[in-house]
């Protein structure tokens, strides 16, 4: 039983980092542009399909396919930001509707290109790690480490570099940041594109673990938003921890409570947090 719990705990942590990477994108975009980009899930799907196509279709090595997929998603993100999101800055509802429209557009384009058949990538890294009786697929471990290092280095970049501090400054006082020489338009575009690239990375890694379908991102964007809100919007490390908390709640919760209600446990937790601590677990009071 202990082994089962610890196993589920680890599973929850790994899935949680995947929620965390989306949550990070949600938090950054919301903090800088004032909108929630619900299309991040669709960008994740683009990343997943591109990575799958590059590896299984074109025969490019997976470690090389992932960065190419991320670059492709970021390019799409740039295109979308310049043509659409540029006009919805600080308008929550318009941004919401535009991103929803975008989900329909992206999903139908993916369907037109790659049809409805679910795609399964061949095993990139077969084999398992045996950790004192606990069995974890190697690839899951790799995905976890990659995502963790990306989130940690994002945190380091935000706190240690000039550009990162500019992001924080802009989130706190846009006009003051502008006066201090922050190129705000570039910054906003940069953050939107970076968020989509994060989602693309999440998707490209997802492709190596699970079967692909066009709407794969829809549950992840929800969990990402939940994790971001749970942690407190604007907190970078919070989005990682929020994602992990959510993943673990679901994984361990479904051991003791009915499996069918798996998605509900995180929601109950989220509602309670929002009611009694509206700024989230790690948000400023």
């Amino acid at each position, binding site marked *: 039983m202990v082994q089962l719990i610890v196993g589920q705990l680890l599973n929850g942590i790994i899935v949680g980092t995947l929620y965390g990477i989306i949550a990070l994108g949600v938090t950054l975009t919301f903090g800088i542009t004032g909108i*929630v980009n619900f299309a991040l899930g669709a960008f994740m799907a683009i990343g997943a399909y591109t990575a799958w196509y590059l590896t299984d279709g074109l025969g490019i090595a997976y470690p090389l396919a992932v960065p190419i997929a991320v670059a492709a998603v970021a390019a799409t993100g740039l295109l979308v930001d310049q043509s*659409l999101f540029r*006009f*919805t800055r600080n308008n*929550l*509802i*318009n941004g*919401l*509707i*535009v991103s*929803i*429209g*975008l*989900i*329909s*557009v992206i*999903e*139908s*384009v993916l*369907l*037109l290109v790659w049809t409805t058949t679910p795609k399964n990538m061949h095993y990139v890294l077969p084999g398992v790690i045996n950790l004192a009786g606990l069995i974890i697929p190697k690839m899951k471990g790799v995905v976890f480490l990659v995502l963790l290092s990306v989130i940690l280095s994002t945190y380091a970049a935000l706190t240690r570099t000039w550009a990162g501090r500019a992001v924080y400054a802009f989130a706190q006082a846009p006009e003051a940041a502008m006066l201090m020489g922050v190129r705000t338009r570039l910054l906003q575009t940069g953050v939107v594109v970076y968020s989509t690239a994060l989602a693309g990375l999440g998707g490209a890694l997802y492709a190596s673990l699970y079967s692909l379908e066009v709407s794969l991102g*829809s549950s992840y964007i*929800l969990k990402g*938003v*939940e994790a971001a*809100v749970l942690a407190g919007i604007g907190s970078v490390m919070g989005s990682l921890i929020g994602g992990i908390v959510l993943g673990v709640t679901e994984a361990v919760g479904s051991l003791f409570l*009915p499996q*069918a*209600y798996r*998605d*509900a446990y995180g*929601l*109950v937790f*989220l*509602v309670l947090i*929002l*009611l009694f601590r*509206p700024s989230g677990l790690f948000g400023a009071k």
Partner: protein
Amino acid sequence: MRTSLAWLSLFLVPFVLHNDVALAILVFTFILGILAVSFNLIFGYTGQLSMFHAAAFGIAAYATDLSMSRLDVSFWVGAIIAIIVVIALSLVVGTICFRFRLREFYFAIVTLAFSEMTRLVILNWNSFTNGSLGINLTTTPTIWLPGGVVPVAGTRMWYYLSLVSLLSVVFVCTRVVQSWMGRCLAAIRLNDELAETLGINVFLYKLISFLIGNAGAAIAGALYAFYLGYIEPAYLSIEQSLAIVAMALLGGRETVAGPVIGAFILTALPHVISLSAELRVLLYGAILICTILLLPRGISGLIARPRYVS
């Protein structure tokens, strides 16, 4: 005057238009129009982005059918039971949200959470709701006409039933919006702290608007289920919630009946132009994006004057 004439002319449409498909599109427009108009009372007039609307719609669909099959009552009694159930649930959700002063994004997230929880319950309560398989409805509502009680069958009967229901909902919403209560709702939308200072009971008025809106969604749910003849948990999906927001924004949130136009465009347009399923979804997304960016006040905003208060 002009608007009443426009409404009246809708009653004459079936005499001119004999195409069943076109009439069916209008029936869907009217039923979804009820949904969008009632949503707009909460969203466009009170300024609360509720994601619970699809849940109210779906719960009512299930409650109507289940009370008909379990309690052996007629469609209309079933619909009334459904409205009561929805109002009771909205009372709980609304009280929690408004007591804790959840605003904007946080209100949307919490109502979304409640909506998802309801969907999961309906999806997994197999013995009661038949789970993901849904329920096939075999009965039809009956109405009393001069000459006896007849079942509502055929597109034309449904056309009039849904049109009359839509008109009643539009009428109620117009009365609400133009009354003293409507001014309070507008004050809350514009600045709820100021409204509180002016002596408006913000909690109460937000709750009332939430209840009336959800009751409208319940009417739409009961009608929609029996017109379609099929209920499934997807009635409560997030996609449905978002489609409602889209209808309201597309039609225009500044007028009571504006969202009906949105319902018409989003239900009809993809059917009129014959396209494959993928291209249809693509078109749907493109319409949404273009309207928001090019017509921020919605389609009815093109003709209606900008509003100041109500």
